[in-house]
């Protein structure tokens, strides 16, 4: 990596570059033949194999050219590569290609290499080491975090106004609700993973407990959403404590594995307890939320009750309920956010962060580690439960399918990519992880490819997450104007150096 900035342009060693590119293409071939080239399809005669050699050829070709490009960047030809890659991406974009796959790969590959080359062109000029670059990135993260003081309220305002603009159609509102749900889950998990430093791989279990709490309470007892919302939170918190008691003595990887198991246990119970939960068929006909128990969102209300549009003298619109759901999840998510921002400045939040930093030192200071961790677990679970019951009422139908491990993984990915412990990072990461695949829904199969690429790029570029930066929760001297990189910036910079050192080896 440092070679970019250190070595001046020299004569290009073509055989070596070609050899390296060919080798990489060979590795890509080995990987893509089973992963991409062969596909099992369900035929009436049984399971059959389908081959997709075009895609394999395109992928291998792309890897070959891409590696060639990377080598040329290393040799100091970044400008040339940038132009070529941009041309390739443009060609893919404008010219009709024989297959769709080729076209997408051309665009995506060209764009990525172009970005890489552009970064090389920029950093190649400023002779910075990796550590310095990491420090600079950290300063940017710090700036974003400080900017969130005024950026946050603006974002909230935009989110508040959005449903009232003519822009807000059914599809965009649905995406907004989806994003806000994941933001809320991300903020909830951030309490456990980001603050308390406990790697929870089964967070979706609490989401499921919340969703099924509401669905079952409504199904069997006919309880309303507004009564079930707190109940779902309490039940999820209790399940968090239940899980927490036996596992909190475990540390690190062992802890993660047990939480992973817990997530699966909940899902398998839901699948197999057919008489009670409906098994894999799930529960349908979950009641929609009413307007705070006063009015329903229906065209023709039953005798003696008022509908929402009648209450406010509006024309009936199916959109009303969606807008209401949107505001509901917005408020729920903001509650989690405000809670986290406040708790960080309280002894409980500080104890969580101290536990993340050094658990043994905490014991020596008389901090009851079990209680602190249980509190983190229960509170995060409670927020997961709220989100779950919201999910149930929004969908009207839930099944164990919605609570698979991949959901936990996505929520965790949001927290990690955003930068552990960073509230604004969760928002940015959700926009990337959930928003991008939604925006590129037309790409069908390839959107997961784009998702994977995005993750790899972020992890290479910002290994500690996009906005990993921690501000002290209490300052003795207040914030000094001139020292953005001073005391506050130091925290993450130290870690950044460590990582840079690790990468250089």
């Amino acid at each position: 990596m440092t070679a970019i900035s250190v070595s001046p342009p020299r004569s290009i060693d073509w055989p070596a570059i070609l050899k390296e590119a060919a080798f990489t293409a060979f590795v890509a071939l080995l990987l893509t033949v089973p992963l991409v080239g062969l596909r099992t399809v369900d035929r009436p005669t049984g399971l059959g194999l389908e081959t997709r050699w075009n895609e394999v050829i395109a992928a291998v070709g792309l890897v070959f050219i891409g590696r060639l490009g990377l080598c040329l960047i290393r040799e100091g030809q970044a400008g040339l590569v940038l132009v070529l890659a941009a041309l390739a991406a443009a060609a893919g974009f404008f010219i009709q290609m024989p297959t769709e796959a080729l076209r997408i790969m051309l665009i995506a590959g060209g764009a990525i290499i172009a970005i890489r080359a552009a970064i090389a062109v920029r950093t190649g000029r400023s002779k910075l080491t990796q550590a310095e670059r990491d420090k600079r990135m950290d300063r940017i993260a710090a700036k974003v975090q400080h900017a969130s003081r005024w950026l946050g309220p603006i974002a909230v305002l935009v989110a508040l106004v959005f449903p009232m603009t003519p822009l807000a159609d059914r599809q965009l509102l649905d995406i907004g609700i989806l994003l806000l749900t994941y933001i809320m889950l991300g903020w909830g998990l951030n309490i456990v993973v980001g603050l308390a430093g406990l790697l929870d791989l089964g967070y979706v279990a609490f989401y499921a407990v919340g969703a099924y709490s509401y669905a079952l309470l409504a199904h069997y007892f006919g309880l309303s959403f507004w009564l079930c919302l707190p109940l779902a939170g309490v039940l999820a918190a209790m399940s968090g404590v239940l899980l927490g008691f036996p596992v909190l003595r475990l540390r690190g990887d062992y802890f993660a594995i047990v939480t992973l198991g817990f997530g699966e246990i909940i899902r398998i119970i839901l699948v197999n307890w057919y008489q009670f939960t409906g098994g894999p068929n799930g529960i349908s006909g979950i009641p929609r939320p009413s307007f705070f128990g006063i009015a329903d969102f229906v065209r023709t209300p039953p005798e003696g009750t008022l509908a929402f549009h009648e209450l406010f003298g509006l024309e009936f619109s199916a959109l009303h309920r969606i807008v209401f759901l949107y505001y509901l999840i917005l408020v729920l998510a903001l509650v989690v956010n405000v809670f986290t921002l406040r708790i960080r400045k309280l002894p409980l939040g500080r104890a969580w962060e101290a536990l993340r930093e050094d658990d043994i030192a905490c014991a020596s200071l008389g901090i009851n580690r079990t209680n602190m961790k249980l509190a983190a677990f229960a509170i995060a679970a409670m927020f997961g439960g709220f989100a779950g019951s919201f999910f149930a009422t929004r969908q009207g139908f839930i099944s164990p399918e919605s609570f698979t491990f991949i959901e936990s993984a996505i929520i965790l990915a949001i927290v990690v990519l955003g930068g552990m412990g960073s509230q604004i990072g969760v928002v940015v990461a959700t926009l990337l992880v959930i928003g991008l695949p939604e925006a590129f829904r037309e790409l069908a199969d390839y959107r997961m490819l784009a998702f994977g690429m995005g993750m790899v790029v972020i992890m290479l570029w910002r290994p500690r997450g996009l906005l990993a930066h921690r501000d002290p929760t209490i300052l003795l001297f207040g914030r000094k104007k001139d020292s953005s990189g001073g005391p506050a910036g130091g925290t993450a910079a130290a870690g950044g150096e460590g990582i840079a050192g690790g990468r250089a080896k």
Partner: protein
Amino acid sequence: MTDLSMTKPPLLKVEHLTMRFGGLVANSDVSFVANSGEITAIIGPNGAGKTTLFNCITGFYTPTVGRMTLRHPDGKEFLLERMPGYRISQKASVARTFQNIRLFSGMSVLENLVVAQHNKLIKASGFSIAGLLGLPSYTKAEREAVDLAKYWLDRVRLLDFADWSAGNLPYGAQRRLEIARAMCTEPVLLCLDEPAAGLNPRESGELADLLTFIRDEHNTGVLLIEHDMSVVMTISDHVVVLDYGRKISDGDPDFVKNDPAVIRAYLGEEEDEELPPEVANDLPEVAKRAEEGA
């Protein structure tokens, strides 16, 4: 020594402490006392069981055999071997530092000291509820906590670095911060595990001053593991020497310095020491074989 302990009950009384890990005996029948307002040093060669002793006193290990009684100035007594780890700090007010520094390195210096006052603050914050509501009782408690932190930061000359992250401090400063953090828990007994390790002579001198200050002004009992004899011998009121897990000497610094058992432990046996009979009898045989082999 004896008549003193008759008049004033000791702060910490360790009796017949034995700690075994499987077959390994780390401490064997160790008994000693430590008094309030005194510095008690525990010295001994590497592997003598000093840190194990500390871990027993501070609750990280539960001793196999033995009793440890801590007596507060107000007369309350605690049997340390029966308390879970965190309670020893919370209730019995024993604080410690670690041989390899254990700071919350990602947090700021001030935060480190505020976390140390966790138990006081979490009560004031009504287990977070009053704190979340922003009630004035918590704000006041936090201000007091910051004042205490400021006092100790001033003591260890780190006031200017209060907003730095602890991990960015130089090594010596980190050692001092760890002591300040332990003192912020307002302990009656402060256990320091090699606080002078890695310090230069000037820093060691400062450390000695700090420890004397803690002893004299705060009337805190200090238990000190240390290899740096210049520190130990100048500031200690009482020295306990361990070797192979046993106590081999106990007394004031001058007594211990001249105790033959201590000299033997540190410098080894005299030249003319006799070999065990079975080795001595075998020696000619071994020499003969070696010759034949050559």
